[in-house]
């Protein structure tokens, strides 16, 4: 795990959205944690924005060690484990004696 701490901020322009957040914070019992909502919402929307090609690109960067696991997990979630399994299965298949998959070697 990397040391990505929560000391970084994202700023974005908001008008009615900011007022709506402040309004809900005011009227909702106990208030709302806008930062937490924004983090959760951002993760969800980032994942929704990811297409299959993006997923592969993120996974490849992760497996080359170019990005940290927690960053990859924000984008891929549990898929990161599934992709690991797929990669292992494929590599394991490649390590087999591939001549057995060829038409000519079909002796027995």
């Amino acid at each position: 795990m990397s040391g990505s701490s929560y000391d970084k901020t994202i700023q974005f322009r908001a008008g009615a959205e900011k007022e709506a957040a402040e309004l809900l914070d005011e009227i909702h019992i106990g208030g709302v944690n806008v930062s937490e909502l924004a983090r959760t919402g951002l993760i969800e929307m980032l994942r929704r924005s990811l297409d299959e090609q993006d997923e592969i690109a993120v996974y490849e960067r992760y497996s080359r060690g170019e990005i940290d696991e927690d960053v990859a997990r924000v984008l891929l979630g549990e898929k990161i484990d599934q992709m690991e399994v797929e990669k292992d299965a494929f590599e394991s298949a490649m390590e087999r004696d591939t001549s057995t998959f060829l038409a000519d070697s079909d002796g027995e």
Partner: protein
Amino acid sequence: MASDPRHPLLADTSSLIAVANTDQWDVLAESVALTTTNVCKHELQNHVNANTYAPEGSREQYLKRGSQRVLDHLDEDSSSWSCVTVVPRPHGPDAGEESLKQELSEHGDSYQVVSLLDGAARRSIRRLVDDHGYDIDVVDGKLHR
């Protein structure tokens, strides 16, 4: 047909169609030996017979063209591709996947690699492989490129 050999590579309908649509189709068809099931073959036949308009570049055309290529190759006498009959024959939308499971349950020792395009189907078949203690890799058919 009933005595078709079992090759170490078992492939489902979608992965066969994917292979048939690659640039290396001719080479792969001639050089690779693989096995599929009668149920998958039937699914291929359904794609070919589908009475849908299949314009150039559409998914329908992809399925139709791929399925036709695979069927033609399976039916060639000299083909190194084989088709095994699964009994009782599964039905429904997952019939192809089910037929692979049935085949693996009975003849898992004949196979080394199973190729499927659907991720959920791969996970399900991996469980079956683990439960039986088979030495089989379940891979994504698209990665054959």
